[in-house]
């Protein structure tokens, strides 16, 4: 009979190994899924994981890795702080949208005036937009004890409607011949988040993501606040005795994650996307949840996980056009990854032993 024994301490070895095992298991079962869909599984997996990095057109796809990975890492870093403390912000998608709308609005307000300070102002506005959107669930939780999971999620749907309103009405390009969507920021020099080195995909969002990783690492390992975050997650009662103020922590964690998600939105709208449009958001805010868990809520882990997840996005696109793999298959693939990860965590927290059933 299989028995589970709770480990006194989570196993460090398994904690590091589970993401790897989960990725392998996902490749295996993903391959099965692709086979069921009538695609050659080996070729599909190779197209997703190998071609973007080392294939014939890798020179084109490698920069994309940074473009797609940066928002994921940026958002996931923020989410991980809250998740560690048991504060569940799952509305990053909404904060991402609001960051983009507010940031772009500030930039467009200056159009066509050119000045060096416009882009920095947009960055601040984007962060504030995301921050403010996250402050709604934070404030409601602190003041009224409202569930932050439900409120932050409802705000995603509201933000999507605001996005539609922005691209159809208040941010619509007056010279757009009636098409929805704002002016293209890529052709407005002061607001354009261009590649820092031409053709590398290295824009300010990538820099911000790297800074966020280092910042989060220092915060969690070297700062009192980081200690409080970890303590609250692992032993809420002990945290109370240690004088942690839950309200402050909630405002802080949701605030940081909102601001980072807002930044991600701003860098996307002013760079790769170029304009506020109805279908501007592509689910980074939700995928970032997977990234945060895949990275074990650890800053460096998230960096790796973000890269991997960006790879599945790009590889998925290639597989879609080359092999005719449906777009949704990649979504399933990403969901599967989270599943295996959570399931395999059993091995981190429990010791699985085989034991003969004793006859009483």
């Amino acid at each position, binding site marked *: 009979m299989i028995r589970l024994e*709770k480990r006194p301490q989570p196993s460090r070895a398994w904690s590091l190994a589970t993401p790897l095992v989960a990725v392998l298991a996902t490749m295996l079962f993903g391959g099965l899924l692709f086979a069921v869909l009538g695609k050659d599984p080996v070729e599909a997996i190779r197209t997703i994981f190998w071609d973007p990095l080392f294939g014939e057109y890798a020179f084109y796809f490698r920069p994309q890795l940074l473009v797609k990975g940066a928002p994921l890492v940026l958002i996931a870093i923020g989410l991980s702080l809250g998740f560690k403390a048991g504060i569940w912000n799952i509305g990053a998608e909404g904060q991402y949208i609001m960051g983009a709308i507010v940031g772009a609005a500030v930039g467009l307000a200056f159009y066509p005036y050119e000045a060096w300070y416009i882009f920095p102002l947009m960055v601040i506005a984007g962060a504030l937009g995301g921050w403010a959107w996250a402050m709604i669930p934070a404030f409601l939780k602190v003041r009224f*004890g*409202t569930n932050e999971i439900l409120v932050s999620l409802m705000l995603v749907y509201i933000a999507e409607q605001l996005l539609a309103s922005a691209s159809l009405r208040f941010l619509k390009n007056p010279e757009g011949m009636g098409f929805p969507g704002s002016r293209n920021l890529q052709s407005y020099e002061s607001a354009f988040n261009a590649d820092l080195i031409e053709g590398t995909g290295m824009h300010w969002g990538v820099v911000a993501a790297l800074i966020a990783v280092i910042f989060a690492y220092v915060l969690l390992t070297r700062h009192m606040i980081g200690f409080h975050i970890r303590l609250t997650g692992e032993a809420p009662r002990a945290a109370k005795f240690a004088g942690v103020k839950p309200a402050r922590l909630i405002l802080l964690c949701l605030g940081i994650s909102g601001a980072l998600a807002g930044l991600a939105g701003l860098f996307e709208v002013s760079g790769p996307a170029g304009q506020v449009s109805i279908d501007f958001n592509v689910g980074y805010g*939700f995928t970032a949840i997977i990234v945060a868990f895949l990275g074990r809520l650890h800053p460096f882990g998230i960096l790796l996980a973000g890269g991997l997840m960006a790879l599945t996005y790009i590889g998925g696109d290639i597989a879609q056009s080359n092999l005719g793999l449906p777009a949704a298959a990649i979504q399933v693939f990403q*969901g599967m990854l989270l599943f295996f990860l959570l399931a395999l965590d059993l091995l981190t927290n429990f010791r699985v032993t085989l034991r003969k059933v004793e006859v009483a």
Partner: protein
Amino acid sequence: MDLSAINPVLLIASLMVAATPILLAAIGELVVEKSGVLNLGVEGMMIIGAVSGFATAVESGSPWLGFIASALAGAVFSLLFVLLTQVAKANQVASGLALTLSGLGLSALLGQSYVGIKPPQMGMLDIPLLTDLPVVGPILFGHDPILYLGLALTAAVWALLKFTRAGLILRAVGENHEAAHALGYKVIRIRVLAIMFGGACAGLGGAYISLIRVPQWTEGMTAGVGWIALALVVFASWKPWRALLGAYLFGGVTVVQLNLQAAGVAIPVEYLAMSPYVITIVVLVILSADKSSAPAALGRNFHASR
């Protein structure tokens, strides 16, 4: 703008239709939460139910088979959540999110070839004389059978929780799983059954959207109804009849805003469309002060150490 075009009788009748998917999902989740499990995967189970019910109904030509398939699919899909939380003891919040994320992806994959198809129609209840009554007829006696099933389910769950031994055990497990275990009840087994019931209900609710309310299949068509159902359970303080009341309130908001859109009110469409979500938040805020009725073991995993 022509508000006189809105017919109050039709408004109430369509309100009941709009409320049914929320009610079905909420009643299922209520039972799950009463057993001490927080399953945030309602949205995922709903959309899986929506797509499998739709596909089965189209292939077989029978909406009834569609609904049966949707309940089965929801229950089977919820087994993934069982595997994560009850077997692997994973965090319930994260597992629920995983269920929702993968449900949305999987449903899009399964439903690819069903976009733009019309499903077979389900017959409406038609009792001679009664259905033809003015005002009362269309409101009380003119709906599809699943709507009445939703109402019956509400009553059944209420009676189960209040009057039966099974309900008492379910509540005991949700309040204090250690004590229930000490009394010899199979905590995990009871929770698994509750989760599967919740999955079946969510599946039914999803199929109600794709087969009756819309009726069509589009990707992500549940559009947050599963989350609203989760909010509704809190709103209802874990009481079935209050869940019904809440579902009708949300159904009402949805229908009224759709009617206002159609009537061409001077408010932009987007602001009307976001109103159900805004109302959900407002209601959550008003009612979140009272947490006393939440099951005490909600969201905590059980591991029998001996």
